[in-house]
Structure formats: structure tokens, C-alpha cells
């Protein structure tokens, strides 16, 4: 198992980073986030069509590039660094993740053409579950499906739903848990979100016609798999956010002077940043490990995901909090991007399971049971 970045991965990172440097500067991200167009769909088109970020881990037979979740994780790192306002998590990781998992089951109903359209970026999809849902949570019951696939119900705080043309929706049908693809008959209301760069939205299905993509155990497994992939790859995003916060803080403290010295020469701050760097070193290893374990379907993946998500979530929040504090007053202003990172880190801590949830999930996996 390689915990390093391959040359191909580094090339991909370079391409994404350079595009984002051009098109996704903090000031433009900030300017967008209070408008009615929180997503930068122009940037999204370039990312999908020119860099192909949405097709990386999609098999070639389904119109993808047949790379792996390792590469997708690298994209998550870079999008995280830039808090880029694009629906990558909801679309490529969660929705496509659910469809790919459903497609791999024996009685798959997922059509290759649907996956191909998503992989190519022709349609934007989202997974209609609360962003806070964790891999081990019960199958949701807030949406019901009739025998002929008509969906009624709601899902709150859905990531990237506001940008979505298609929803992958878990619903309770007459035969139990099912997964539907829905392209119309739903209403999306954006919520005022803590994370300005990844707004959540509330979805109401009012007699929407859904196309069944999985049912029964396959539906349950597909949803759980998507959430697990999501949690594991969110760790990569958290790593990116943490790195951004550390680098930005170090750069500021080298420049900012107080008491006739660069503030970065004060030992108490140096030690805090050294500790943060230490955390990020370990977060990087944990995130890489999770991406690799998911990519190769290692049986150890659930442990790797729980470790990565519980660790990286905390590291990202810590990095963002230190970033605000060590920028002093300027870090408290709306103009400085530190708050965008803080809000992303804090929302990510909740997304796909809090660190505490992931530790609780880890306990039985590594034979560390709690008190009886």
C-alpha cells in the first residue's frame, strides 16, 4: 500500500491547483457566496470537461477513466484548499459513489448511460440525505416510494442539492429500502448554511417519479458504501483545508511584525505551529491510507475510514481555529478568507459523521468495546 502520491497524482494535483489559482481566488469565492449563485458552474465545467475530475474513479466500461479513489482524493484535497464552490462532494463522491456501488451488485438496475452522463459532467447529481448522516446510520425513512416509483417526503440539509439536476434518493418502498434516481418533481430550498462555500439545501419530493436503481440489501449496501467513501474522501478535503490554514498562517506570521520582530519569531506561536504541522503530517498519512484502502476495497477500509475521518476532522478544525486566532483581528474580518476555511472545517466535522461517531464505529472493529 503506497501512502505517497504517485507522479500521475502529482500531475493531477498540479493541474487542479493551477486552475483554482486562476479561477478561484479567495476574494472571488467570498464575493460569490452571498449571491443567488453559490456554485461556480463555469469553473465546474472546466473541471469536469477539461480536467475530467468527475470521471476519475468511474470504470472505463461506464464511461470513466478507470483511475481510482486515490486520484479523486487528490482532487478533494485541492478543492478543499481552495474551498472551491463546486458540487464535487455531492456529485462525484456521494451520488456517483452510490450509483457505482449499486451498479456492482448482482441485480444492478443502474444503466451505464446514466453513470456515463454523470461521469462526463453532463448532469450534476446529489445524494438526497442529510450531510450529517454517517456510514453506520439507519436507512432513512423520511422519503416513501410507492410501488410504481413515486416519491414523497423530504430530506434536510442535503449537500450540493441546490446545484443538482438529478438526485439519488434513498426511500422506503413497498419492498423495503430502495434507491431511486430522480430528475424532476422535487423542490430544493437552499438553507442559510454555516459553510458558505458548500451550502446545504432542503429537498421536498412531492410525487416525484423515480427510477429504481437498487432495492433491498443492495440499496442499503450502496448507501452505506457511498457514505463510507464520502467519509474517507472527506478526510482528504479536511487535509487540504488544514494545509491551507497552516500555510497561510505561517506566511502571515513571517510578514507581520509586532514589537519590532516578525510575529512568527515568537516561540509560543512557533511551538503551536510546530504541533499543528505534526498533526497535519499524521492527518496526511491517515487520509492517504483511507483513500488507498477504499480504492483497493481493502477489508480494512472501515477502520481506515474511521481513523482518517475522526482524526482529520479534528485536525482541520484545529488548524482553522489557530488560523483565525493567529491572524489576530484580521482573522476575524469578513474580508479575510480564514472564516471560509473555519466554516468549512466546522461543517466538515459534522459531515458524514462527527469524530465521536467514527470513534464509536471504530470500537468494535478493533475490539475495543465500551463498558457493558
Amino acid at each position: 500500500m503506497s501512502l505517497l502520491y504517485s507522479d500521475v497524482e502529482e500531475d493531477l494535483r498540479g493541474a487542479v491547483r493551477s486552475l483554482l489559482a486562476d479561477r478561484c481566488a479567495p476574494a472571488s469565492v467570498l464575493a460569490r457566496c452571498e449571491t443567488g449563485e453559490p456554485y461556480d458552474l463555469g469553473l465546474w465545467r472546466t473541471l469536469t470537461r477539461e480536467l475530467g475530475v468527475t470521471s476519475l474513479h468511474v470504470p472505463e466500461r461506464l464511461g470513466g477513466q478507470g483511475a481510482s479513489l486515490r486520484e479523486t482524493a487528490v482532487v478533494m484535497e485541492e478543492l478543499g484548499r481552495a474551498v472551491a464552490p463546486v458540487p464535487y462532494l455531492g456529485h462525484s463522491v456521494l451520488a456517483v459513489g452510490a450509483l457505482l456501488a449499486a451498479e456492482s451488485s448482482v441485480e444492478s438496475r443502474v444503466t451505464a448511460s446514466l453513470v456515463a452522463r454523470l461521469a462526463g459532467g453532463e448532469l450534476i447529481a446529489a445524494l438526497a440525505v442529510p450531510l450529517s448522516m454517517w456510514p453506520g446510520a439507519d436507512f432513512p425513512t423520511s422519503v416513501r416510494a410507492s410501488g410504481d416509483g413515486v416519491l414523497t417526503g423530504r430530506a434536510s440539509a442535503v449537500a450540493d442539492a441546490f446545484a443538482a439536476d438529478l438526485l439519488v434518493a434513498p426511500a422506503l418502498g413497498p419492498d423495503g429500502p430502495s434507491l431511486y434516481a430522480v430528475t424532476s418533481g422535487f423542490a430544493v430550498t437552499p438553507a442559510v448554511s454555516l459553510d458558505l462555500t458548500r451550502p446545504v439545501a432542503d429537498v421536498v419530493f412531492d410525487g416525484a417519479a423515480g427510477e429504481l436503481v437498487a432495492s433491498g440489501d443492495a440499496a442499503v449496501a450502496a448507501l452505506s458504501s457511498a457514505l463510507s467513501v464520502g467519509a474517507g474522501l472527506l478526510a482528504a478535503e479536511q487535509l487540504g483545508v488544514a494545509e491551507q490554514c497552516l500555510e497561510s498562517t505561517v506566511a502571515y506570521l513571517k510578514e507581520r511584525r509586532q514589537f519590532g520582530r516578525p510575529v512568527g519569531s515568537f516561540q509560543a506561536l512557533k511551538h503551536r505551529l510546530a504541533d499543528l504541522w505534526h498533526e497535519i503530517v499524521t492527518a496526511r498519512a491517515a487520509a492517504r491510507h483511507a483513500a488507498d484502502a477504499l480504492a483497493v476495497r481493502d477489508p480494512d477500509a472501515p477502520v481506515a475510514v474511521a481513523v482518517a475521518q475522526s482524526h482529520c476532522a479534528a485536525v482541520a478544525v484545529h488548524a482553522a481555529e489557530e488560523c483565525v486566532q493567529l491572524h489576530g483581528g484580521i482573522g476575524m474580518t469578513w474580508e479575510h478568507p480564514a472564516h471560509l476555511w473555519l466554516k468549512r472545517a466546522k461543517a466538515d466535522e459534522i459531515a458524514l459523521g462527527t469524530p465521536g461517531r467514527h470513534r464509536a464505529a471504530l470500537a468494535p472493529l478493533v475490539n475495543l468495546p465500551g463498558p457493558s
Partner: protein
Amino acid sequence: MSPAVTVDELRRRTQELLKAHDPQATDRLEFLRARFDAGLAWVHFPEGLGGLGLPRAAQATVDAELEAAGAPDNEPGRIGIGLGMAAPTILRYGTDAQKRRFLRPLWTGEEVWCQLFSEPGAGSDLAAAGARARRDGDDWLVTGQKVWTSSAHNARWAILLTRTDPDVPKHQGMTYFVCDMTDPGVEVRPLRQITGEAEFNEVFLTDARIPDTHRLGDVGEGWQVAQTTLMNERVAIGGRAAPREAGMVGVVAQTWRERPELRTHELHDRLLRLWVEWEALRLAGDRLRQQLAVGAPGPEGSAMKLGFASLSQRLSALEVELLADEGLRYDDWTLRRPETVDFTGREAGYRYLRAKGNSIEGGTSEILRNIIAERVLGLPSEPRVDKDIPWKDLPR
């Protein structure tokens, strides 16, 4: 209490005020002015300046009587900077004329005050401030930029720290003024925060004119004058009395009690840890007040602010995590300019973000730790590279 005025005498004077100016029948401002003139505004101030020269503790007697009678107060939340920072500084360094001119409308709230100290390049290192004041006949002309000014858009007056002599080391070339906020050379712009609102302002001074009669302290003595202001700021923060669970811990405990379905074992122990720490901090505050009451003020005030900031941050962070789904939401990002701030107001997301400021505003936690280490523990200071260099030659 000073033997000159007993508690009974103080009660008697308060009742006299109430008899002469029935709060139910008297205009609010008129009552406040009368209270000031009776020496019952702040009894520890001198006679003639709203006080009676009594110990600070005697105020409680007056306040209790007035509250019982339904008398109006001076809305201390709205005029905190005037009461807590400007007034003690004027009292210590002001001329008689200044004291007579400024203190009465300050106390009654007719004139709101703000503080023009911090600059973009001089935050923790306040003594590096560079807003330049140049002599112009009987006046001074001030040019520079100040920041983190609350109430600037409502304020009539400001206490202002300036650089009058750039050719001497930084602590020596500063002068302290009262600045007229209605001067055409003063421009106030809202400064938006990470919470979405603009609680503070930036203030741009462009040849703002200040008569020399509005100088507080000598020319070049500004740093010492500012120390009085800052010391009173820190005392004010540490001095509030609080029942158990007052403040952020109460808000989070309330959420915990109302939402059993959100509880986990992990969050439970974290909450209990924070509850215990908050309670211990509250008791330390009580202890500090008891020390002050017997005239033995300890250095614990700095500990109060340090602990308050850290606990408020950790508690509000826990609440957002506890709320999970709801923690992903925010109440309102609209740019607003609130007149007062309530750290425990609004919703969890706001509280989490606002609390981040608690360890920055009014002295960062890092500066407080320096102060504790050096002034309380007596640890040696770091090598200083900026003490003996003329201000204009400091590296920037």
C-alpha cells in the same frame, strides 16, 4: 465604608433623590442628571463629579434602593466604553475643566464614547501606533487609521492614542486626546466580521482637528495614560458577578437538557468537563470579587478573561457539534450594525463564531499569557529589539 457617610446616610440621600424626582413622573434624562448631581452616579468618584468619594463597594446600596423604586438606569451595556475606559482615564489625567465638561453627559449616556487605539499595524503592539498628530497653533491635526472601534458610528467622543514624536522610542512619543467624532476629518466605516455583522468600525482620520485643551496628560505621556484605560478594561471584564450556569455554559446545558436524542457518551463527558471548568472559573471570579471587597485585589482578573475566552469557545464548538444537522445551518448572514453584543445570543453557529473574538479583543490571550508570566510569575522578559529605537526606524 468611609466613616464620613454611613450606609444609612447613603440610603437617606437616595430616598431624598427619589422624593425630589419621582422616577415615575420624571423625564428619564432629567432623573439621571439629578442622580449624577446628587453624587449617587458612581459613589467612588469625587463629590461634584457624580460621586461622594466613597469606596466602590458602597455603590451596591444605592443601586439596590433605586432598582426597588423602579428608577431608570443609564443603559451601561450601551455606554460601556465611556463608563469603563474613558471615565477613569479622564478622572485620573483630565483637567478640572475636562472633568466638568465630559463626565456628566458621559455617565447619563447623552454622549456616547468610543476608543481609537488599535491600528491595522499596531494590534497587540499598541505602543507602535502611528496615527500622527501635528501641532497647528492651539490645535492638533491628526491623520491615520484606527480599527476595531465599537460604537464609533454612535459616538460623540473618542479617546484617541496618537504619535506626536516619531524620533524617540515608541513608548515615549505618544500623546492621548479626546477626539470629537463629529469633526469633518473623521470618517467611520463598518468593519464586517466573520459572524456577518459589523459590530466594529474602521475609523479614518484625515487632518482631524483637536484643540490642545482636549489633550489628556502631557505631550509624550500618551502611553502611561493609555495604561490606565487598559487596566480598567481588564478589571471590567473580570469583575462581573454570575450565578451558576450563567453565560455560555447555561446555553449549552439547556440545549443538552432539551434534546436527549442528540446525546452521546463522548459529548457527555466533554460537556461535564467544560461544566466543571466553567464552575471553577465562576468560583474564581467570586473569589476575586471577595478579594476586591476586602481591598486585596489579586492578579486573577487576567485569568478570568483567559478562561472565559477558552471555555466560551470550547462550549460553543461543542454545541454546534451536538446539534449536527442543525449545526450545519446559520441564522442570518446579513450585514447588520448591532448597538450591543450578546455573546450568548442568537443561535449556536453565531455563538461559535462570535466566541472566536473573545481571545482576540481587549488583549489577545497570547498577550495575557505574557502579562501573567512576567507580572504575576515574575519570569524574565524576552530579549527586546524595539525598546531603544526611534519609532520611525522600527522595522515594519
